[in-house]
């Protein structure tokens, strides 16, 4: 039982990271029908922004802030205007191919210009073990990851539901046409979505890199997990992505402990197929009516 509790807390910590990646992915799909096949690489790259910033002499915390800002600029604004912008009216396939190409570009750039080796990335909190309950020992770093990811998600939820801009963004996601008629600056809201996705990816990157080390190939697994978390939770809901991320994180840790470490990466596939078969709208999703 105590083992299970430890695994649960570790799972929620990883799940929080997955949720961050999945939320950004869902937001992009909702507001601009952009399916970002480079989402995994978006979570891989910001850690290298931070490493470069530290090489340039910035202290750790300043490097993290720089990484988030650079990600918002490059993975948000530049991605919106340079990659997605010219392709928006070209149909779905060119955009899909372009984001696939972008994922290769990001991966190869890190490999060729930084390093092909896994890089050690400093943790926010030390790896100090604390005992929560008798027998339940968790590392401080894990609690830090859980707290930071929950704070980020909470902040985002507050922004989306509690501010005028956030509600305008939701309106854009639900129905761009009507939002435009009601005077919502739809273009700007779409841009904000891209910037938020860049920021969320950077947060996920900062939290995940101390655990998995920063490596150019990390994006493959992270991307898969983000897609699956978004679908499992329910595609038309931000809270669906959160639930999907947490669920995947917990299952991932339990599977590694109780089933097999070699096949823990297979969990997303199994979950994905089960959800598609039995609850295609996702755990928290609403059934989408198809307009004919």
């Amino acid at each position, binding site marked *: 039982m105590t083992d299970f509790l430890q695994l649960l807390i570790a799972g929620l910590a990883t799940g929080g990271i997955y949720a961050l990646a999945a939320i950004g992915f869902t937001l992009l799909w909702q507001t601009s029908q952009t399916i970002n096949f480079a989402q995994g690489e978006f979570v891989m790259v910001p850690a290298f922004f931070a490493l470069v910033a530290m090489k340039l002499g910035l202290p750790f915390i300043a490097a993290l802030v720089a990484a988030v800002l650079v990600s918002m600029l490059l993975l948000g604004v530049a991605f919106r205007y340079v990659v997605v912008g010219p392709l928006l009216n070209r149909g779905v*396939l060119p*955009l*899909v191919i*372009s984001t696939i*190409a972008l994922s290769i570009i990001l991966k190869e750039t890190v490999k060729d210009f930084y390093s092909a080796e896994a890089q050690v990335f400093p943790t926010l909190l030390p790896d100090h073990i604390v005992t929560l309950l008798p027998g339940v020992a968790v590392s401080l770093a894990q609690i830090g990851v859980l707290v930071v990811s929950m704070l980020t998600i909470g902040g985002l939820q507050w922004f989306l539901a509690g501010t005028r801009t956030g509600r305008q963004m939701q309106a854009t996601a639900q129905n761009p046409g009507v939002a435009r008629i009601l005077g919502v600056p739809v273009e700007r809201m779409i841009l904000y979505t891209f910037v938020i996705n860049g920021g969320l990816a950077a947060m996920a990157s900062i939290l995940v890199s101390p655990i998995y080390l920063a490596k150019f190939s990390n994006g493959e697994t992270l991307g*898969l997990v983000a*897609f*699956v978390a978004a679908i499992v939770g329910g595609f038309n809901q931000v809270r669906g992505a959160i639930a999907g991320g947490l669920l995947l994180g917990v299952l991932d840790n339990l599977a590694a402990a109780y089933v097999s470490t070699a096949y823990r*990466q297979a969990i997303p596939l199994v979950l994905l197929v089960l959800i*598609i078969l039995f609850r295609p709208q996702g755990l928290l999703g609403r059934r989408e009516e198809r307009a004919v």
Partner: protein
Amino acid sequence: MTARNSLIFALVALALLALLPVDLSGLGLPYPGLRRYGTYILTLWLVTAIAAMGVNLIVGYAGQETLAQAAFVGIGAYFTAIAGKHGVPFGLSFVASGLVTFVIGIALGFPALRVQKHYLAFVTLAFSVLCWLVFRNESAVTGGVMGIRDIERPVVFGLKLRNAVHFYWFVLAIASVMTFVLWWIVRSPWGRAFTALRENPLRAESLGIDVRLYTLLAFALGSAYGGMAGSLYAPLVEFIDPSPFALGPSLLFMLMVVVGGSGTFCGPFVGAAVAVLLPEWLRAWETWYLLIYAVLVMLMMALSPGGLVGLVNQLLARRSARP
């Protein structure tokens, strides 16, 4: 092009391709043929093109996305290699590779296509990761990271195809048959239904075309082309390990088809030629090759989403428009 013209074009192309690696200087022609490595690359191009034809059926005709073609190639390759070690003749394992991947295609596509567009992409993505894990981890069967070596070449009419040119002709014959089958499918009422789907899905559905069934069969058939390509890949390279069947190569198959021109009949051949030859030409820039390729693909999507075939068609149309 009319049917007769394209038939003549295809036969001429076939004859030229058959002669390409042969030394013609004995016949008084100043053409030395290809060396062993050149013939190998040419064969690899054909094998890649078969798998790419499958992707083109899925992407260009049925309008879906598959991110697991390399995994299907892997299934065919491992199946053929392991069956060959147990003495199963090549012909049998070639057909079985196609059947197995067809059935897997149905099993994956059936749930995914029930929901909405793009779900197939995510299901195949996950499947691709799973296959790679199996290839790597089940070392008792697949040899793990060490792979399987010394895969036997097939025996045809008592002749073992050790010679590179002989094996090339063998692959060329199979590729021609498979190309013809696909050409026939695309022109059949079944294939016409795809054109209808692509042009106007709603109208197609109201005409009684079962969209889901057609898309599912296209995905399964396209995947079977991948499996059969894999069945040829194993004896060609004579050694397989998990790395060419990972997620990365599956993504490259998607890019390949779009670079060639998705939804055009020649597109997969052009795309496969670019994907096989470019790394040979850019050998000096080995590490930069993928980066350059991906940047070019992105530019192409922005400037000419019809791919190379689309680009050529555009240029031809512009020339014939001029007086």
